[in-house]
């Protein structure tokens, strides 16, 4: 009881509430502006937290993180420009929904699944942190390698329409991801001596170019889009839809939690893995990519499920899983606190106060998100002839803002042309992105495993986690083959009955 009152005493201050609310608002706004990421916002807010109380300081940063994770989906849905990399997956179904006049429904779906996933992620953080941290420590390069293999089988399920085109797109993604410095030997690959390419192709210019620019080109080429029904006044997500998506949301959240707990993977991969998992299981499989509510829900659940869980390795092991948690680690240290096992012994009340605050932040996200939707969804009503020049300006700004470099603007425009060619040739963009994101992870973990194992292949089957993912990978491939054969058989028999008089 004593502990309880101490925790409440630490948490119940106006500063903490303000910090969370301010953090979430900043996060949503910054996250929704292409090129301004939650990472930048957290980094810029850090100096302001030096003078704050530790709990309020950390909650402010956590609030920005969570708000930013959701905020990215707003522009992804409304103007096909992902505000942050993690929301790239959301636009696959979110933007088509907006085009069909369901902008509000898409935004609400994104919000509700974000909040639910965030909540589940927080629960995992609070109750299973120690357990999940142990899994994370057992998750070495070979285990990672098989997880990525399993995730790569996603491409099969995302290659809607032509399998050949899907694989072609994926290979192009992988090829482009090879650009940059070799991780092991430090040699330059495919940079053509250009220093701007040394760190690999920047992801944000690629995203903006690939998705936003083709829409703009298409508009000015035809002077009108075939689908101009977007209306902000549409209905939100219905209870029946929420029920239908709930399984995908929960599964996506759990995927996010596991991926978040393992340092170094990230929300973008989680969103795509959750999305394809939902697609594989959904009876509405064929509608994915064309404006399926469940697609938006799964993607957002995947990336928001990561947010709470990245705090697990940070708090329990003192290991930051990504740049944002690295900054939050910095904030802890500025206040003389060192996250890790020792903090659980010495500052338990502070940790509990943080937990209460983090739980509370999910609620704040719901309120702030609802408010944001009210105003942001008005964007859907703006005539395209006015909207698109502004979007183009944001595209240029967003690409520039990443590295403060005009090279990235040209890169963005180049990818815009590529995206337009993709559109015309009906090549799906999703496998391209998966190849680009997962390609390097596949290569790095393969090489890392071989280095750790002194070139002995036995390392790839070293324990239960590797066996589990090998089984999943094989199962996923077999399922795809089975479905392909079954579909063929069906179409053959269908055409046979048609032909028979």
């Amino acid at each position, binding site marked *: 009881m004593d502990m309880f009152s101490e925790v409440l005493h630490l948490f119940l201050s106006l500063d903490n509430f303000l910090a969370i609310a301010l953090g979430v608002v900043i996060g949503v706004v910054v996250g929704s502006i292409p090129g301004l990421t939650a990472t930048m916002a957290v980094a810029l807010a850090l100096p302001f937290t030096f003078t704050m109380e530790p709990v309020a300081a950390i909650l402010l940063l956590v609030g920005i993180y969570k708000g930013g994770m959701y905020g990215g989906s707003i522009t992804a849905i409304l103007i096909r420009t992902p505000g942050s990399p993690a929301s790239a997956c959301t636009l696959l179904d979110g933007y088509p929904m907006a085009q069909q006049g369901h902008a509000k429904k898409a935004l609400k779906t994104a919000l509700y699944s974000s909040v639910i996933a965030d909540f589940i992620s927080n629960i995992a953080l609070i109750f299973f942190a120690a357990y999940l941290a142990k899994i994370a420590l057992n998750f070495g390069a070979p285990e990672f390698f098989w997880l990525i293999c399993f995730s790569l089988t996603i491409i099969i399920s995302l290659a809607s329409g032509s399998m050949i085109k899907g694989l072609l797109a994926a290979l192009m993604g992988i090829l482009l991801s090879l650009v940059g410095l070799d991780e092991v030997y430090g040699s330059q690959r495919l940079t053509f001596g250009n220093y*701007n390419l*040394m760190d690999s192709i920047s992801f944000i210019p690629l995203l903006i170019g690939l998705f936003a620019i083709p829409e703009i080109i298409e508009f000015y080429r035809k002077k009108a889009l075939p689908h101009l029904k977007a209306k902000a006044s549409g209905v939100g997500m219905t209870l029946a839809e929420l029920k239908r998506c709930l399984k995908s949301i929960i599964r996506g959240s759990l995927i996010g939690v596991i991926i978040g707990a393992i340092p170094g993977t990230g929300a973008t991969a989680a969103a795509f893995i959750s999305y394809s998992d939902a697609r594989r299981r959904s009876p509405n499989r064929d509608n994915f990519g064309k404006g399926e509510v469940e697609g938006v829900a799964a993607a957002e659940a995947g990336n928001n499920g990561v947010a709470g869980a990245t705090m697990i390795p940070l708090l329990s092991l003192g290991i930051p899983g990504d740049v944002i948690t*690295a900054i939050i680690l910095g904030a802890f240290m500025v206040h003389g606190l060192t996250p890790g096992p020792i903090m659980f012994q010495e500052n338990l009340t502070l940790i509990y106060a943080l937990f209460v605050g983090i739980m509370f932040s999910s609620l704040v996200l719901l309120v702030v998100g609802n408010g944001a939707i009210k105003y942001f969804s008005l964007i859907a009503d703006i005539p395209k002839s006015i909207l698109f020049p502004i979007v183009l300006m944001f595209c240029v700004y967003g690409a520039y803002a990443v590295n403060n470099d005009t090279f990235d603007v040209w890169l963005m425009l180049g990818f815009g042309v590529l995206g337009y060619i993709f559109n015309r040739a009906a090549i799906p963009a999703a496998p391209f992105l998966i190849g680009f994101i997962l390609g390097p992870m596949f290569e790095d973990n393969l090489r890392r495993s071989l280095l750790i194992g002194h070139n002995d292949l036995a390392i790839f089957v070293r324990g239960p986690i590797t066996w589990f993912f090998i089984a999943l990978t094989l199962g996923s491939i077999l399922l795809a083959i089975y479905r392909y054969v079954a579909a063929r058989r069906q179409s053959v028999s269908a055409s046979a009955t048609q032909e028979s008089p």
Partner: protein
Amino acid sequence: MAGVQKSLLKKVCLAACGGGLAVAMSVSTAHANEWPTGDVRLVVPYAPGGTTDVLSRRVADLLQDELDANVVVENRPGAGSTVATGRLARGGRDAAHTILMASPGHTIGAAIYPDLDYDPVEDFVFLQNLIDIPNVMVVPASSPYDSVEEFVEAAREQNMTFSHSGVGSSIHMSGELFKTLTETNLTAVPFAGSGAALPALLGGDVDVSFENMPTVLSHIRSGDLKALAVTSAERSEHLPDVPTLVEVGDYNLDQFVTTAWFGLIAHESFSEEAQEAMRTALDAVMQREEFVSFADQLGAEPGQVAGEEFKQFIAQEVERWQEVAEQAGISQ
């Protein structure tokens, strides 16, 4: 309708151009003033969030008071730190107001990136080395080795691995330097940052690492990692019982002193008067209580060198890392 659209488009474009012009003009007036009355630009050659960024923002805050001028932090990441450094080396209109937070990437970058279009020593003036962060040679708690000697003997007999946070990081180069000096069979295992590298070390997937002190201090204190040595010239206040590699002495380790240093540099044309003003201000910053406690939290020691001495230090570092990179077969 098309006509309306066209004229609207024109208006929007005009408004955008006007806005751009206004911004450009405001920038140029801001830089028209002479040092030290105008704004000072502090370039961080890395993305927001890293040690360099956090340190720079702290220093900018304090420097602002001392100089009585705005100090604006600008992140320009790319190719280690060489994109931003190359840009500074080319000088230009802003060079008189621009300083850059250099770190081991400055000297290592010169060793591993081919065809740099600048000289890492001669193209700059070196203002002040602000902090030095030692690296710690750490092994997992489960490791059978309790001293550097035991480790070296074992690593001469069998193949061992060390983790690092990326090609060309001070952690990587420390490992390569150790390997070269002690003639051991060490293989580098790269990770994307220290956060990703730590689990492999804690879980025993790799045998050793030469991590930055702040990253591993709490794990050493909790007993999850064993510290065999620190890489600085003197023992660290934070780990007084851990010897330096120099103390070990054998296996050529008496030459092993390396730290992650951070310091401010500027273009070679930076005026004498400006250098003087900067050094006085930075001296004052380093005395400030806020700076001392901040450095302490990072596990850092205050920087030792400034001016000409700083420059000599850089020249030696460039030479050393070039040799190590060559021997390790890291791309030139």
